């Protein structure tokens, strides 16, 4: 558990250092994510512990957004005066974005994706099918 947490934090740290050092337009944690994927590719997959740790964190992801959401109190005045414009814009944009993204993906997937290989049956995506390569990468 501690090893896996250390791995996550160290990947983020390296990501932040590289992003700030090279002035890249991507956030540190995203680069950290890519680094961790590269690590998995090298070691043949995440360890059992890493899998469990990530699952625990990600299944409670919603909690992590609460502090930022409360930050809305700082902008009460602006939301009072321009609230309708802001909320309408956010609402219309969210609905449009979901529809456009989903349809664009379905269209492009039919057009370019698969090449005959149909998307795997839902049954093969067992939520509890934690990574089978658990033992392969012994580190962390």
């Amino acid at each position, binding site marked *: 558990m501690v090893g896996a947490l250390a791995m*996550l*934090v160290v*990947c*983020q740290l390296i990501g932040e250092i590289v992003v700030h050092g090279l002035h890249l*337009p*991507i*956030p540190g*944690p*995203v680069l950290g994510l890519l680094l*961790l*994927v590269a690590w*998995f590719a090298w070691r043949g997959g*995440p360890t059992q512990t*890493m899998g469990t740790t*990530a699952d625990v*964190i*990600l*299944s409670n*992801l*919603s*909690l*992590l*957004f*609460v*502090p*930022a*959401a*409360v*930050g809305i*109190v*700082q*902008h009460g005045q602006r*939301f009072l005066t*321009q609230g309708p*414009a802001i909320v*309408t*814009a*956010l609402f*219309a*944009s*969210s609905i*449009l*974005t*979901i529809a*456009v*993204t*989903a349809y*664009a*993906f*379905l269209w*492009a*997937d039919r057009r*370019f*994706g*698969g090449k005959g290989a149909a998307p*795997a049956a*839902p049954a093969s995506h067992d*939520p509890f099918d*934690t*990574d089978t390569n658990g033992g392969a990468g012994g580190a962390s």
Partner: protein
Amino acid sequence: MMSKKGLGDIWVYLSASPLLWLAATLVAYLIGVRIYTRTNRNPFANPVALAALFLVILLVVTDTPYPNYFNGAQFIHFLLGPATVALAVPLWRHRADVRRGALPLTIAMVAGSVTAAASAVFVAHVLGADRETVLSLAPKSVTTPIAMGISESIGGIPSLTAAMVMVTGIIGAVFGPLLLRWLKIRDDRAKGLSMGMAAHGVGTAISYTMSPLAGSFAGIAMALNGLITALAVPLLLALLL
């Protein structure tokens, strides 16, 4: 019996320590989750929205400034970084799906990213929002830390952007699943992708409860949307405003 002054002293002590607001955030979230599960996961009872609502009321009633609250809540907020890195695990597990869908994924993400920023800016501008508000809106579908960076670089107000990002996340979490059902979209990849695209991490959290496949596609969308939006928004603004 505790005197009124005694209680006041305890309040003064507690309100200055991170413990109080850390505990309040956890408890508010747990109550939110309890209500969410009790209402059969009704999207309108979104735990983040409920928890934020309880806490905002609490802050207003106790006249607590946000920085004091954040002093305690930052310990939770900090975990967003490691959680983003942890998305590598579902991404790895679904690498075959991702590789097979690389081109459709890219097309959908570019279309989604441009739609998100352009439609928000356009609607707000037409409805008469001021320039700072419009600029702060452009990166609203991107995950908070990236959105704040983009906002700052285009002349928006980063903390206002953070608030809009959260409102967007909650709108997406509440109405996204309803919309997807209404549009009869059953492909878990399309569901996750569109939720992560429109509603960043909050959408990813919801997608995760749909299926791990949807969750990992949402995670991909969230991670790459930050990158695409950072590159696309300055161009879009030059065209639109």
